[in-house]
């Protein structure tokens, strides 16, 4: 069966697109799927370092487009997972080095050999974004529970719908359960109510993610870590499984409010 192309985008930078792409790619590969992860962030490539493959980059996306190598030569096999490959972005060029049609071509060449192609979109709504969404069968929008990220996600939803690429699904990243319980962070339902799209997954804020990125080994390889579980859950949903969403810091209703007002600490995670 031909691969499904999923583009991970956000509008705002720094909300976790690259981390999400790396971890979903690893999670899908761990579930036995053949996965190609494409870094579409030409000029600001990072998927290679997050996946720990920066030392193996020889050719990149622009080399393929400009005919300096064949597609297969640019694909880097993961260190641990034999069915996971990275197609790195060029670092010394800009977004105009590739066109949306060329991205569609590259994905079409890859489709027969993979189950999933995940594209890490650059921030913004300009050509880099257009390149990343052009080949997409499905779009996952990453946001954090903050006003700026949610606002930008809304803009992206509008663009995705206008481009008839929808319906996009939402990944809410970096939820802090303690802050949600205090009423100081938008919760999952708040964000869904504001944006009006379907939820694909929720990922708790977790310092293990920084540690794993430091090591170049995505957290999805680990077990017993909530964030890793969150990525596995999303991967299974992409496979069509019906996986319940994690409950992260529910407001606690009447009793929760009472406890907060009485100044007692809410139950810990």
């Amino acid at each position, binding site marked *: 069966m031909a691969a499904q192309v999923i583009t991970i985008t956000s509008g705002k930078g720094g909300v976790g697109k690259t981390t999400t792409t790396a971890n979903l790619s690893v999670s899908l590969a761990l579930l036995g799927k053949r996965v190609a992860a494409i870094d579409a962030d030409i000029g600001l490539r990072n998927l290679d370092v997050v996946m720990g493959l920066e030392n193996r980059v020889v050719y990149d996306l622009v080399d393929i487009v400009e005919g300096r190598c064949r597609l297969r030569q640019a694909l880097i096999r993961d260190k641990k997972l034999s069915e996971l490959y990275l197609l790195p972005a060029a670092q010394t060029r800009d977004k105009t080095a590739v066109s949306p049609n060329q991205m569609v071509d590259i994905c079409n060449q890859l489709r027969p050999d993979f189950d999933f192609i995940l594209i890490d979109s650059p921030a913004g709504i300009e050509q880099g974004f257009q390149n990343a969404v052009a080949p997409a069968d499905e779009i996952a929008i990453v946001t954090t529970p903050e006003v700026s990220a949610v*606002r930008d996600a809304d803009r992206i939803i509008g663009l995705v719908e206008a481009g008839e690429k929808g319906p996009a699904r939402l990944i809410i990243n970096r939820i802090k359960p303690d802050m949600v319980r205090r009423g100081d962070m938008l919760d999952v339902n708040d964000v869904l109510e504001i944006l009006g799209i379907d939820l694909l997954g929720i990922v708790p804020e977790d310092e293990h993610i920084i540690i794993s990125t430091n090591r170049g080994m995505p957290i999805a390889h680990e077990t017993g870590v909530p964030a890793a579980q969150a990525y596995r859950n999303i991967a299974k949903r992409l496979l069509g499984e019906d996986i319940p969403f994690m409950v992260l810091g529910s407001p606690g209703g*009447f009793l929760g409010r009472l406890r907060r007002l009485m100044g007692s600490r809410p139950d810990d995670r």
Partner: protein
Amino acid sequence: MGFINKLLGREPVGSKDIAKERLRLVLIHDRTDISPIMLDALKADLIAVISEHLEIDRSGIEITISESKGHSRLLATIPILGKRSRY
């Protein structure tokens, strides 16, 4: 009284309610190109017209624009206290 309201969940407890309200307003503008200033002016005019006929609870008025399938829709929730005595 404030305490009771907070307890019953009638009043914002944390800063997220402020975030939600601000997002709601800014997204109306982003989605429809209708500025918050224009929406405020519209709200004031609506209140003036409706107040001629009905007694309304000004603090409970909510005016928003929702968008679905390319159509914008003006939604006004205006709590009525009673009709004007001249009727």
